[in-house]
Each structure stands twice: as structure tokens, then as C-alpha cells.
């Protein structure tokens, strides 16, 4: 038992704890008993049979309750109650800001939002494209069924999991630190992130592929690289395009925030207006962002459906 849990239980003597009513446990016990009764069938000759447990709605609810119970124990042990109270007490502030976004909403700010929004979209699109281009050759190296050396594919996979550890925002922050501010940072950060996830999705597809045609092309005297281009790429092209479109959907959202660490786009404006308490402007930015994401997401979803 750790320090905090001890503190929480001070004042309760052992006997007091035992006497204290335990509604959750009683409730769970009752549920379990009812569940067992519910699953038991008794035949006319007295024989009984218990239907095995299944993920019915009630069972799922019970599991959820148990989970929440333990979750409260764990979270309660590590977080101070006061944090939560601060959160609760400031909800009115939050509502206040929401209200100002609405009452001070001013469409004339729209003109200032258009260019940064275009920047944001461009960062996402260009970054996705660059990441996608690099993902194909690296997916080739990571596929254990193509590169027969377990060391090569293993090392490449390890590097890839490392690349995937960080979200776009972290890459943008690091790049901004090295290269200074600008949209290019956002493009690079998006490219690195996209590269990481796309490569993983691709090599997983390649590793389940039927490679008989690859073997046949290799047998004509073509190198592994050429055999990959002619026989594997046509087979994974559908998945590749679909994954790339999906990445665009993810990247549009994350690039909106990149301005906070200096990558340009609407993120900078969000930051500035927040500092100046111009909540009306933030309202405009959020509406533009919402509509842009909605449009791009729907185009992407439409294209992906056409692909499959």
C-alpha cells in the first residue's frame, strides 16, 4: 500500500471498517447471484444446467460497473481531490468563455482566418504526401517475408516504433527548436508522424500478402527491389491510398494545433487570441476549422469508399 492510500484510511479502525456498509460490494454480489440464477435452467427431472457466460448487455454493464469501481480506487489513490474541485469550481469560467465566443462572435474576423487555415491544410496535405512517399520503400525493408534477413527487418521495425512514439506536436516542437518557426516545421512534423504510422500499416499488409508473384518475378532475374515494385506495389496500392487518405484526416486535426509550438497556420491565431481574451475571434476560428475538417473528412471518406 502506498503513502496516499494509508493517509486516506487513517481514522478508520479495523473493526469500524468491517462494520461499515459496503453498498457497491453488496450490489455486485446481488447482481452476480441474479446473473447465475438467470443462466441456470432446471429441467422437470431436477437436472440443472448453467448456460456459459456471454457478453450480453447486462453482463457488459456489470463489467463496466466493476471497472469504474476499480478505476475510482486507482485514480483516487493518485490524484488529489482538490484538483478535481478546482476543475468543478471553474466550470462556470469555461461556460463563460463559451458564452463570449457566441456573443462576441464577429464574422469580419473571417478574412484574417482564411490564409492561416489554407496554410494549415497545406501543411497537412504536403506533410502527408511526403510521409507517404517515404513509407513505401521503408515498408519494403520492414517486411520480414521480403527481406529475408530477420536482423534488417527487426532493426527497421524497432526504429519505426521509436518514430511512432511521439505525436506530431512533439516533432514540431523539436523541429521548431532546431530550425526556428515556420510552416515548413509543420510539414516536416506531419511527414514524420505520417511516415511512422503508414509504414507500420503497410508492412502489416505486405506480411500477409501472397508473395507467389514476387517469387516468380525474382526468378526472372529481377532484383528484390524491382520485383517489389512490379508485383507487391500493385497489390497494396488500394490499401496504400486508403491509409494515406485516412492519414490526411488525422493530420488536418493535428496541424491545427501545431501553431502553438511555432509551426504556423491557425494554431498561432488560437494562441494569440487566447492570450488577448478575444473569445469572439476564437469562435470564428473554431467554426472555420470545424467546417474545413468536415469537408476534408467527407471528401476523404468518399474517396476511400470508392477505393474499396
Amino acid at each position, binding site marked *: 500500500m502506498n503513502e496516499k492510500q494509508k493517509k486516506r484510511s487513517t481514522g478508520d479502525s479495523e473493526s469500524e471498517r468491517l462494520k461499515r456498509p459496503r453498498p457497491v460490494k453488496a450490489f455486485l454480489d446481488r447482481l452476480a447471484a441474479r446473473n447465475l440464477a438467470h443462466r441456470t435452467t432446471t429441467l422437470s427431472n431436477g437436472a440443472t444446467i448453467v448456460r456459459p457466460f456471454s457478453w450480453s448487455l447486462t453482463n457488459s454493464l456489470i463489467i463496466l460497473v466493476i471497472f469504474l469501481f476499480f478505476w475510482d480506487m486507482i485514480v483516487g489513490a493518485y490524484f488529489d481531490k482538490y484538483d478535481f474541485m478546482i476543475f468543478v469550481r471553474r466550470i462556470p469560467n469555461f461556460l463563460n468563455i463559451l458564452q463570449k465566443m457566441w456573443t462576441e462572435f464577429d464574422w469580419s474576423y473571417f478574412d484574417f482566418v482564411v490564409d492561416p487555415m489554407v496554410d494549415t491544410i497545406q501543411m497537412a496535405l504536403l506533410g502527408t504526401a511526403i510521409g507517404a512517399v517515404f513509407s513505401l520503400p521503408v515498408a519494403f525493408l520492414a517486411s520480414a517475408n521480403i527481406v529475408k534477413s530477420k536482423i534488417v527487418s527487426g532493426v527497421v521495425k524497432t526504429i519505426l516504433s521509436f518514430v511512432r512514439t511521439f505525436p506530431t506536436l512533439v516533432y514540431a516542437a523539436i523541429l521548431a527548436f532546431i530550425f526556428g518557426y515556420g510552416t515548413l516545421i509543420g510539414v516536416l512534423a506531419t511527414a514524420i508522424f505520417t511516415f511512422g504510422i503508414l509504414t507500420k500499416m503497410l508492412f502489416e499488409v505486405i506480411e500477409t500478402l*501472397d508473395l*507467389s*508473384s514476387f*517469387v*516468380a*518475378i525474382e*526468378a*526472372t*532475374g*529481377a*532484383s528484390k*527491389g*524491382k*520485383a517489389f*515494385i*512490379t*508485383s507487391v506495389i*500493385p*497489390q497494396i*496500392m*488500394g490499401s496504400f491510398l486508403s491509409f494515406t487518405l485516412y492519414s490526411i484526416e488525422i493530420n488536418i486535426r493535428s496541424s491545427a494545433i501545431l501553431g502553438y509550438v511555432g509551426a504556423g497556420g491557425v494554431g498561432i491565431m488560437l494562441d494569440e487570441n487566447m492570450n488577448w481574451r478575444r473569445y469572439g475571434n476564437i469562435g470564428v476560428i473554431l467554426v472555420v476549422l470545424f467546417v474545413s475538417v468536415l469537408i476534408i473528412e467527407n471528401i476523404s471518406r468518399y474517396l476511400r469508399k470508392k477505393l474499396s
Partner: protein
Amino acid sequence: MIQFSHVSKIYPNGTVALKDVTLEIQQGEFVAIIGLSGAGKSTLIKLINKMTDVTEGSLIVNKSDVRRLQGAELRRFRRRIGIVFQSFNLINRTSVINNVLAARVADMNFFSTLLGLYSRDDKLLALESLDNVGILEKAYSRADQLSGGQQQRVALARTLAQKPSIILADEPVASLDPITANQIMKDFKRINVDHNITVIANMHHVDMALKYANRVIGINKGEIVFDGPSSQVNEDLLKKIYGREITDEDIMFKKTLGE
């Protein structure tokens, strides 16, 4: 010319697939290899283009010492050897012509391959190869939408587009119906005669082997137990090769044998 001398093949797990194989195949021969499943037929074929390595002995193919070949030299060597598989091994979701053109990438530079820039000559060669096996009109269909027999013809055309001196075939008609199988074997025969290309085919069905090959090599448990003209093959020899009586399983056209 292909020369095996005292070749043995032992797989890493210790399986002895071939034992002390010595044989010589001249340019332009049509050889059928027969034997039970697991006898070592596929292994024999795979040794010729180094899809698997010789363990002992020497193997000379087209004047190259196969055991020494590697890297770029091995790839150059493989360009003149075509191989046809039982399961066709075509590229799915891709047109027939692109499947055939895939045989040309070994000769192309990397960027033309990447961009799919095939030369006029290569395209012409691919179409001629398709015409040679009688499916020119399917050139722009998707390969996976063809019947089994048509797919094997595409595979054969792909092999022809390599301009090979040798064609290896690993049970090329075992998964086809008898009528189609016969037609494909006729294609092999015609290519063998017209272009003087050596054909070495593993055959699951004895009757097909005897009908199309000039020479039959019988393998039993990794050893060559017969090597001679098809006309010499009789029931006793087959018993020796198969180690048992011939059953309906071993014959494609069930009534033809013994007629």
C-alpha cells in the same frame, strides 16, 4: 546444356531431397520428371535456377557454375531461364500485359521500372508472347479474372517474354482440368519445337508426361531410378519409380493408359 554431376541436396532441417544425381540435358530437349509426391522433383528444378542451393556435387547450366553464382551475376543468369509454377503465380489486380511485361524489368533500369516505362520493343514482345499462346485478346483484361488455363498461358507468355533458353515447369497442369491441361502441354511442346527451348517439366500425371516429353526421368526418394526415352517406359518401370502400382490418381485421362 545442363550438367548435374553427383549432386546432392540436403535441406537445413536435415531432409535429404536428392542423392547423388548425375545427368545431362541437351539444348532443346523436352524432359518430364516423374515420381511420387516428396520424391524431390521440385527440388531438382529449383536447383537449376538457384532458387535453392546445391549441397554437394557440381551443376553447370549454360556454361555457368551455378554454385558460384550470386548477386548481379546470378540475376543475369536467371534472365535466360523461365519458370512456370503450378499455381501460376501471376500478379493479381494487374492487367495481363503488365504481368507479361514484368518479365522485362530484370533488363530495365530502376527508374523505368519504378515509373512502369516499358519500351516499345518490350510491349511488342509481350503482345507477341501472348499471341504465341493464343490469348492476345486478353492482353488488357485483369489477370485474376481469367480461368486457370488462361492464367497458366499468361504465365507461359511471361516466361517467353524473357526470351529463355530453358523453361522449367513445376507441375504446370496439375491444377487444371484434363482438356485444358492437354492444350497447355501442346503450347509447351510447340514452344519447345519452334524455338528450340529446353523444357524440363515435373509431371504429376504419368500419361501426360509420356505423351509430350521425349525423355523421362524417374525419381524415387531423391534418387534417379530411370532416365531414358518416353517410349521405353512400361508398367514395370513405373512400378519401380512409384514403388507401387499405378493408380487412377497418377493418370489424367483415366482410360488412355494401356490402350
